[in-house]
């Protein structure tokens, strides 16, 4: 009886300590806990990805859904991006009488920065929210638990396949978006000028170098990985019922978009350092 009383007192005192804790300190604690569980989640991915059995069929299915199904959206965005960038850049270059530099300037902008970043943002919006909402609804309806009970590894089946697909499909989408953007730029150049298709692409490749292409493509692998990792993490750890589904989808997109800019900043610094 005395022991019960002691335990009761201890629980009450802990509750009082927690409620009287500084809210900023609590937020900081939550933040570090989130970082820690995200790191463990990422490490689990690297552990599961190399361990058989491999879910190849699911990987192809996810690649189709994540990559191929995103292509129309990415293509339209890419075309408009190239067109608008060219139209907006023309007046400034015209002031210096340097309109002939338009294809080269637009190409460098698209290949180095705008193509990868805008495509990744579109991808985060479409795929990130999709993965976040899908996994979160599976979690709150206990489908993930059911998979575990039936002997399927849900992490391997749901998370590994999606992260791998996104990591591989985003660079493929970026290459396609770059090509379509350049075509958009060609249309933009010809709205007020007269440059042949051949001359346009000669001028584009005249100013491009491997240092423009490779770092831009390499960083898209990291974009794809982070978008899928954060979306899967948010979806896989969703709670609070149906409300949690919306929250997971929302925070997946926000975090994925933010991570794109952070990775981009690091990539630019590293590129400048080594090339």
């Amino acid at each position, binding site marked *: 009886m005395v022991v019960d009383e002691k335990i009761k007192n201890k629980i009450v005192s802990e509750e009082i300590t927690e409620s009287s804790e500084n809210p900023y300190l609590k937020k900081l604690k939550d933040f570090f806990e989130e970082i820690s569980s995200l790191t463990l989640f990422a490490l689990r991915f690297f552990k599961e990805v190399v361990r058989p059995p491999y879910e190849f069929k699911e990987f192809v299915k996810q690649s189709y859904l994540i990559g191929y199904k995103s292509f129309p959206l990415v293509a339209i965005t890419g075309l408009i991006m190239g067109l608008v960038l060219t139209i907006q850049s023309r007046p400034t270059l015209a002031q210096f009488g340097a309109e002939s530099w338009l294809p080269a300037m637009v190409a460098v902008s698209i290949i180095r920065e705008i193509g990868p970043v805008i495509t990744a943002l579109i991808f985060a919006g479409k795929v990130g929210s999709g993965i976040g909402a899908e996994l979160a609804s599976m979690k709150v309806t206990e489908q993930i638990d059911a998979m575990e009970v039936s002997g399927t590894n849900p992490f391997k089946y749901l998370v590994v396949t999606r992260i791998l697909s996104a990591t591989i499909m985003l660079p493929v*989408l970026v290459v*396609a978006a770059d090509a379509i953007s350049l075509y958009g730029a060609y249309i933009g150049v010809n709205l007020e000028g007269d440059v042949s298709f051949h001359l346009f692409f000669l001028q584009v490749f005249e100013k491009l170098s491997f240092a423009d292409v490779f770092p831009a493509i390499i960083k898209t692998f990291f974009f794809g990985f982070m978008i899928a990792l954060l979306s899967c993490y948010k979806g896989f750890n969703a709670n609070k019922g149906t409300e949690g589904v919306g929250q997971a989808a929302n925070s997946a997109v926000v975090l994925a978009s933010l991570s794109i800019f952070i990775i981009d900043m690091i990539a630019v610094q590293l590129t400048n350092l080594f090339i």
Partner: protein
Amino acid sequence: MKKSTGNKMKLGIFVSISITLFIVGIYFIGARQQLFSSTFQISGIFRDISGLQVGNNVRFSGINIGIIENIEQITDSTVKVDMVINEDTRKFIKKNAKAIIGSDGLMGNKIILIIPGPVGKKELNNNDTIETAQAVSMDDILIKIKVTADNAASITNDLAIIMQSISEGKGTVGKLLMDSTLAHTLEGAIINIKQGAGGFKSNMDAAGNNVLLRGFFKKKNKEKEKEKEKEAEKK
């Protein structure tokens, strides 16, 4: 099952097209950097490379024929620049050709211009060192412009002094332009010359009617008429 195969097919086509686009892009960029064509290497020694960088173009007769592969400082006043040149152009670049550092337009990148020498010499071999000439740099041009501007300032200064002297009526030109007395005197002189010329004409008319001189004037008139007739015949 059928749908799954169709999806796989679509995904395969999409990925293949993207990879092909990537490879084509890489090929075009590589081709510009002479990666996929047969090349030979030459080098040139410069005193000042004016900001030339690895990867800049080498141009011959206005055509890009290669790129700068390496830049190396060999002494405190000399820099060795290695160039990779397209093999197809080797037959046109002779041993007496000269390399100078130029610029691609007013704001463009630095480039190396290979200027052909007189014909007759042998073509360059692999790893040969090409003759170089120091191009006129922007700094040289600015120094010359400064000298010209100093001279122009000195001239305008002198002109200002002269103009002031003229406006004050000093010197011959100043007096001519600004002195009203001289203007009146000149006007009088011109009137006198006019009157003198009128008198001279009257004298000449009188001489033409004089018995002693009439023959001379008639002879003169006949010669004039003959000349006119000759000219008319010629025409």
